[in-house]
């Protein structure tokens, strides 16, 4: 018996949609957390509800990264895959995220009826040098699953995995109990537990190794949370009282959480008839003085553009959340990408002003709403919070962030401003119109409009007035540019290469810089949290590195720089090219960054 101990290990459970792979993952990670481990979890979700079983589209699963340290991203390659049949396995192999020593546990249950297909996939695995451990669910368990109407296979696999990860059976069973608890009838529960146990036994017989996972006591008050939940709770903490949205993947779960939670905090979740109506209502509510937010993903962002421009012209504060997904158009709704940046910065017609904040992890998600509201109300313009599928859906265990309970925006604590590398804004900021009262205020009566107006709010088409209004609006953004401090830097303050990142790539970048340091490469990372406007000192900072590159989950090539590279080029005139700019729907991995850094530096 081989017992491996690895500092970092990543494994995957792949099944057909609708059979509970993610549920099994949740139980497992509950157990890991109880063991004091750090984990980072990424669910894999099909874009259809239940695509036909045994089709590539049906792939549904979970990737779990297990670490001794606070992992900031889903990591590099997978060490172990447990697949319910050869097709989901084959589909996943396409992404090429496995380790050369990766072990594959393949359920051979379907082989009899699909021998050729199994043959082909097994051949592929051998060609790639992967170790395959074929197994079959025992007959007793098969019958139990049949009894359960086809359910329960996930518990069986869970059993296998907990054997391999050397877990305490009792403890995992407690987690199962916790998860299904009252939902299942006792006899059904019993059957599930038996399946779990049988899986454990099977692995014991079939698998020639175990991975040593030590248990140690948890420290501090911890929570397990995903990006969208964190953003939702952050909105409440920041004092938002109206959420106005229209369902769209991957933004919807923010609305689902708030629909349950917000009324208890005195707020309303409004599901509008479409994205235009959703943003219109948020604008109406904010005009009424109530902090409001609208939330969407790509296609909905496009629909909101007209109102986005309106809000800044009428000087009505607004917060817009864009949870990015694979684009363009309908694209790949359940995959990650970072390609909406240009549309967020430039999407509404004419010269319009906006501020763009990005989130890189669950803690950013919790505090971004506070900053967004602060900026929106101080400047009376739309502030975006950009997340993406990866940040939204991945979850991890963190120390519980401190609640702020923000009521007025000036209460925003310094630690939040510091987290986003921005200083407090000047007290008085000029507006295009002098009066800015909220309905109900006697003597503050005013009409707002998307037409150009003079300082008194009267419609005006004069050349001087129009140019002045543009200046005032743009100056608001410049206030932010001047308030931005040096962005977060990982690694040395000067060196051979600087890797600039934003959004969900932060974790991979940080980890890659550590890998580089280990190999003696003088690489540093710069992570931008406010992505528009850009801070004013970038050119200076860039000059301290021989090369400056970006990493982006977005398309770019030699003739077309990827979005962040494009913006940085125009801003600094430094010849910035993407180190990685790929729209694969998959997160960027630290080790690939390391590899590309080496390539680029040896050129």
């Amino acid at each position, binding site marked *: 018996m081989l017992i491996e101990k690895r500092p970092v290990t990543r494994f995957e459970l792949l099944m057909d949609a609708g059979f509970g792979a993610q549920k099994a993952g949740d139980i497992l990670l509950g157990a890991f957390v109880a063991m004091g481990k750090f984990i980072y979890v990424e669910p894999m979700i099909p874009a259809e509800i239940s695509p036909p079983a045994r089709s590539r589209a049906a792939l549904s699963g979970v990737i779990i990264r297990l670490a001794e340290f606070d992992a900031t991203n889903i990591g590099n390659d997978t060490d172990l895959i447990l697949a319910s049949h050869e097709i989901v396995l084959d589909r996943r192999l396409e992404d090429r995220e496995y380790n050369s020593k990766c072990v594959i546990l393949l359920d051979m249950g379907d082989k009899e009826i699909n021998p050729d297909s199994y043959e082909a996939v097994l051949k592929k695995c051998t060609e790639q040098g992967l170790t395959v451990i074929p197994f079959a669910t025992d007959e007793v368990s098969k019958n139990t699953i049949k009894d359960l109407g086809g359910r329960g296979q996930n518990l069986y696999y869970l059993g296998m995995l907990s054997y391999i990860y050397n877990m305490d059976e009792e403890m995992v069973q407690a987690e199962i109990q916790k998860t299904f608890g009252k939902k299942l009838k006792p006899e059904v529960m019993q059957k599930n537990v038996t399946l779990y146990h049988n899986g454990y036994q099977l692995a014991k017989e079939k698998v020639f190794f175990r991975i040593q996972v030590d248990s140690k006591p948890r420290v501090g008050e911890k929570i*397990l949370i995903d990006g969208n939940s964190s953003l939702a709770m952050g909105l409440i903490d920041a004092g938002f009282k109206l959420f106005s949205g229209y369902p769209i993947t991957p933004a919807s779960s923010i609305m689902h959480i708030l629909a349950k939670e917000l009324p208890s905090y005195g707020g309303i979740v409004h599901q509008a*008839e*479409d994205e235009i109506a959703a943003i219109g209502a948020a604008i109406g*509510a904010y*005009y009424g003085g109530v902090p409001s937010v609208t939330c969407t993903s790509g296609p909905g962002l496009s629909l909101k553009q007209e109102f986005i421009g309106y809000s800044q012209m009428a000087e009505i504060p607004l917060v817009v959340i864009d949870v990015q997904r694979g684009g363009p158009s309908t694209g790949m709704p359940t995959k990650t990408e970072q390609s909406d940046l240009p549309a967020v910065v430039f999407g509404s017609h004419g010269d319009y002003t906006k501020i763009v904040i990005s989130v890189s992890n669950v803690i950013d998600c919790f505090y971004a709403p506070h900053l967004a509201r602060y900026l929106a109300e101080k400047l009376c313009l739309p502030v975006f919070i950009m997340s993406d599928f990866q940040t939204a859906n991945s979850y991890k265990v963190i120390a519980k962030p401190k609640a702020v309970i923000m009521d007025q*925006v000036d209460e925003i604590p310094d630690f939040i401003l510091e987290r986003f590398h921005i200083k407090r804004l000047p007290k008085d900021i000029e507006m295009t119109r002098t009066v800015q009262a909220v309905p*109900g205020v006697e003597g503050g*009566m005013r009409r707002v409009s998307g037409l150009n107006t003079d300082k008194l709010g009267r419609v005006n088409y004069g050349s001087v007035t129009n140019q002045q209004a543009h200046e005032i609006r743009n100056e608001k953004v410049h206030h932010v540019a001047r308030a931005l401090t040096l962005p977060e830097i990982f690694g040395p303050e000067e060196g051979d290469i600087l890797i600039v990142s934003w959004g969900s790539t932060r974790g991979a970048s940080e980890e890659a810089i550590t890998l580089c340091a280990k190999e003696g490469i003088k690489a540093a990372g710069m992570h931008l949290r406010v992505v528009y406007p850009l801070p004013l000192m970038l050119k200076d900072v860039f000059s301290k590195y021989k090369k400056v590159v970006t990493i982006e989950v977005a398309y770019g090539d030699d003739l077309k720089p990827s979005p962040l590279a494009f913006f940085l080029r125009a801003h600094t005139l430094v010849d910035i090219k993407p180190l990685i700019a790929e729209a694969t729907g998959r997160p960027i991995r630290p080790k690939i960054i390391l590899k590309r850094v080496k390539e680029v530096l040896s050129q």
Partner: protein
Amino acid sequence: MSTPAEEQPSPLVTVKDLNTENPRWCAGCGDFGIIMGLKRFIVERQLSPAKTVNVSGIGCSSRAPFYFNTYGVHSIHGRPITVAMGIALARPDLNLFVHSGDGDTLSIGGNHLIHGINKNFKCVFLMYDNEIYALTKNQTSPTTRKDHVTNTQPQGSYLNPLNPLSVAIGLGASFVASTADWIPDHLTNTLKTAFDHPGFAFVHISQRCPHFDPNNFDHKSSSWFSFLKHPNGIEPDKRLADKTEVIDHDPSNLAKAFEFAAAERRYFGLFYQNKNKPRYDVVMHDLIKNAPPKDRSKILDGFDI
């Protein structure tokens, strides 16, 4: 962002108090009559201007909010209902009037009309129906009469117009009334009834556009329309009451309302009213009332492990 101060007793509001600049409308435009009708109502009811919001889209008619010394949102084309929805949810204490042209309401804004009506949030919705796109210079609107020549349908408008009243009734509106810019008493009475309605009050107003369509709406004769009358309805216009056909109609009768609405002849008055249709704005505030209050300092406790 300053929040409203405590309501202060305001002095008596007059029409003059409600005026701002000289409206940028053509002489003879029906829009003058409509805003005057609303101002008369505001004065009659002594609504607080500081607690009144006029919301509009884009069009000649949608300039109306500029001409009321109240709060106002001149929003974007076709979307005033969406903004009003947000205001209604955020600030149930305000008096909410929505001003929208026929193009604004029924062409680009059609979807929001559907859902404004269905959500039945409290506001008075004034549809200024001049049966034309005026501000963009004379194009066919959904209510332009067949064969009428416009810039986009120069061979004469191609289709039968949409009928805003039967559309509203078909959508399940809880309040559907019709009036015209040139019958001021009826107009003001209609707005009064609409304002007292607990929900989305759809008020259709025939509006003259002498600039582009001087021959539409023969406002000197009253042979082409009738008033609908009922104790629970709206009084026929005093000036025209004896000269014009008056028909009894119980506004609780949906089938009859649909028949009047779908008819060729025009009727002014209250077609339909149902005070019991659930109101989304009320439902949403009830949700808050009924939700167990939670402690903001423990906001993340639900995620403990």
